[in-house]
């Protein structure tokens, strides 16, 4: 077993990285894959609350790196899936506590025991971002259909290519189909066109995401959640399945053309 390391990043804050990480982790764990998610947002720990594991934290990422505990001690097992773990971020203010090479060696240590290592990147393009992409085999670039978020995604795409972690795959989050239809929101086509990167997921704006995260649950566990369904589809695509982009009412033709993405799961 050699895990594939997938980093979820965006440049801009608040586009839904943490929610995506939690949902993808649960979606992959649901199919019996062994998954560990790492919160790389040092100083602003959040993946724990989104996954509903905040009360179980004893040790964190920085404790592992600074040798205060064993790696296993910092891994928190999920409440529902025994094949899903979280390594929480530290709440320290010292962001230099973790280096890119620390992340690489941490992931090397984990690879043998897991199918997937998901790294939740902090916003921005500084140290935390570099830490998050250093061990990555695939970078998921998240964006929202707004000018500022797409602009930052473009910046991130350039940086991951410069770090030879490219080309990455795009997730468009918080799409409102009815706004796209009336011409008041950038469409998937518009965004893919300007960013020129493979699309791996389209997630609709959906209240069930907040309702689920209020309870520390993942929306993918809610059968009726459209966003949950979209995250499940992304997980399938990560595993190499060719899943049609039926998250939104799609226009024919375009979605068929971008279906080619799919071998990202590879032979890990």
């Amino acid at each position, binding site marked *: 077993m050699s895990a594939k390391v997938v980093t979820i990043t965006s440049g801009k804050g608040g586009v839904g990285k943490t929610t995506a990480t939690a949902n993808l982790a649960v979606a992959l764990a649901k199919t019996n894959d062994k998954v560990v998610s790492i919160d790389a947002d040092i100083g602003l720990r959040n993946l724990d609350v989104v996954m509903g594991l905040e009360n179980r934290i004893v040790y964190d990422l920085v404790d592992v790196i600074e040798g205060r505990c064993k790696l296993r001690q910092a891994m928190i097992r999920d409440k529902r899936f025994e094949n899903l773990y979280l390594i929480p971020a530290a709440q320290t203010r010292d962001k230099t506590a973790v280096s890119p090479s620390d992340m690489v060696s941490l992931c090397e240590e984990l690879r043998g025991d897991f199918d997937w290592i998901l790294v939740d990147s902090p916003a921005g393009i500084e140290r935390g971002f570099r830490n998050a992409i250093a061990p990555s085999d695939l970078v998921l670039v998240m964006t929202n259909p*707004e*000018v500022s978020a797409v602009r930052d995604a*473009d910046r991130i795409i350039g940086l991951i290519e410069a770090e030879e972690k490219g080309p990455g795959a795009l997730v468009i989050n918080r799409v409102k189909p009815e706004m796209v239809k009336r*011409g008041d929101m*950038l*469409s998937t086509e518009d965004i893919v066109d*300007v960013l*020129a990167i493979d699309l791996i997921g389209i997630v609709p704006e959906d209240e069930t995401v907040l309702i689920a995260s209020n309870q520390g649950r993942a929306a993918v566990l809610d059968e009726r959640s459209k966003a949950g369904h979209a995250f499940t589809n992304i997980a399938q695509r990560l595993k190499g399945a060719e899943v049609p982009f039926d998250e939104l009412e799609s226009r024919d033709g375009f979605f068929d053309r971008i279906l080619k993405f799919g071998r990202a799961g590879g032979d890990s």
Partner: protein
Amino acid sequence: MSFLERMGLNRSQSADNAKERLKLVLIHDRAGLSPGKLEALKDDLIRVIEKHVSIDTREVQITLTRDRDQQRLVADIPILSIKDRR
């Protein structure tokens, strides 16, 4: 808001607007050349070229373009004809 818009008959264009603004800002971002810097470059370029050939400075156009992955700085510099110079 116009009558048509109020009636919902006119398709809104804010997404088109967003796309155009996005394209423009990305062209400058990707080249690391802001619109202000581009103006400065244009002024420098005019100064250098004028040393060698007479040009119509008011008509000089410097634009950043992108086709696929290739960024391009395109300069359109009209040269004054011989009769204009003399």
